[in-house]
């Protein structure tokens, strides 16, 4: 399997180099960032595209599981429910490298899912990010749905709506808050590096995404490119958050909160 690309021992970090100048680097990297975007650099597009693709699919998978799961925990009173809530909340802060390691072990040749040969593929990255994002979406969904259910419970009971039927109702009525939860999950997925690096391997043209490229280019001393990508990443995160705010704003105005 070999050492992971971007290993520090191969490529000493050049940040301490005497010639290193912060101001120059910033000007350069902004220049590089705009150059990268302006020239529609094909490789850059492939990298940004894969990042988006992996994270969007991972978030979609996490949402399909996490929304009903969170709603279930919110609506049903079962044994060990508080433990489940505590677990979900704890897992929100799951370290990406740990998720990466676990998925790596599952997918590696000797692991239980080894025969599928998924290690170092985009699918592996999707799996890892889904696991990373699932608790975030599930925990935020549980909170949203629980608050809503507190408000609705007597009315729903009066209409003859049982807990099973209540779940889709509550998910729909919490749609704006839940969209924010999903966007939070996306922000986490697109920005993490540990999990995708471990299970994807940062293979050029195959599993190289923005964050792993930043890590690699930084370690190679190509700070301008690294920062340029960092700026694009930030811009994406900004766009997502702006989208979340916009959705909330629309919800407030249109739906009366």
């Amino acid at each position, binding site marked *: 399997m070999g050492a992971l690309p971007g290993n520090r021992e191969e490529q000493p970090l050049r940040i301490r180099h005497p010639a290193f100048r912060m101001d120059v680097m910033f000007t350069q990297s902004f220049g590089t960032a705009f150059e990268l975007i302006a020239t529609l650099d094909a490789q850059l597009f492939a990298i940004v595209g894969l990042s988006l693709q992996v994270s969007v699919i991972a978030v979609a998978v996490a949402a399909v599981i996490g929304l009903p799961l969170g709603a279930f925990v919110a609506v049903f009173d079962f044994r060990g429910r508080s433990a489940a809530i505590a677990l979900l909340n704890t897992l929100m802060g799951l370290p990406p490298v740990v998720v990466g390691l676990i998925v790596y072990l599952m997918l590696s040749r000797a692991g239980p899912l080894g025969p599928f040969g998924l290690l170092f593929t985009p699918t592996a990255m999707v799996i890892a990010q889904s696991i990373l994002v699932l608790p975030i979406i599930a925990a935020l969904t549980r909170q949203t749905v629980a608050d809503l259910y507190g408000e*609705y419970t007597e*009315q729903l009971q009066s209409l003859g709506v049982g807990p099973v039927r209540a779940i889709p109702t509550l998910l*729909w009525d919490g749609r704006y808050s839940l969209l924010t939860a999903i966007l939070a999950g996306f922000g986490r997925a697109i920005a993490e590096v540990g999990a995708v690096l471990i299970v994807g391997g940062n293979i050029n043209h195959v599993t190289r995404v923005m964050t792993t490229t930043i890590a690699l280019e930084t370690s190679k001393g190509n700070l301008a490119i690294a920062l340029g990508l960092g700026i694009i990443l930030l811009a994406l995160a900004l766009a997502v958050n702006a989208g979340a705010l916009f959705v909330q704003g629309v919800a407030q105005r249109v739906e009366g909160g």
Partner: protein
Amino acid sequence: MSKLALVIDKPFEEQSKTAPHDSILPLVLDGVCFDINGHRLLDRISLTLCHGVRTVLLGPNGAGKSLLLRLCHGLLQPTTGRIQWSDNDSRRLHKKQAMVFQRPVLLRRSVAANVAYALAVKGVSNDRRRPMVARALEEVGLAQLARRPARVLSSGEQQRLALARAWALEPEVLFLDEPTANLDPGATRLIEETINAFHRQGTKIVLVTHDLGQARRHADEIVFLHRGRLVERSMAAAFFKRPRSDEAKAFLAGELLD
């Protein structure tokens, strides 16, 4: 029993003859008690609610009126005692009752969708829902606001929407918990007109109110609660003319009860 004068007559139980053959009424409460954390909030309530009679629950704040309404509607279970409809099928019981809460709970959807949702839950097919929604909104004068998000309505309009939702369900029994608290006189009048329309349709009205004028206008019988006890049950005219219990006298005289 106790020092409380328990004054009860059974003025209307005869009237259940007019009830439809598949009626879920009368509703019989037999020695119903309701405790929370060892506090007895309702104490040995025995009461029969009959078809065709508008029942108004009166009593000071904290008397247990809302709790009693919730128990009747099945939102709460009595700690001891029995609550018995004349039908045992819980699905049918659900479908034949509706409740309007003091603070209306509306879904985060359009006005029309709120009514349609209740019908969908009841099992009304998609194509039959639309005219029923339209008629219900027409009934409460909200037809023009059908597409507006329910949560932006004024509180009077929200309460009317809650009534429209109940209207669409065509309940045999309608529980109303202070439906006009905090509403202006115009909005109150609109709500009261709808309550009258329910009554004309043959819906049994069980109304909690602090508005004595409203109680006079809508009550056939009064059930007076005080500190979790049923203290007096009388025909409305008699109750307002000459209440028999000291608590009801004091209540009508506007004295503070404790």
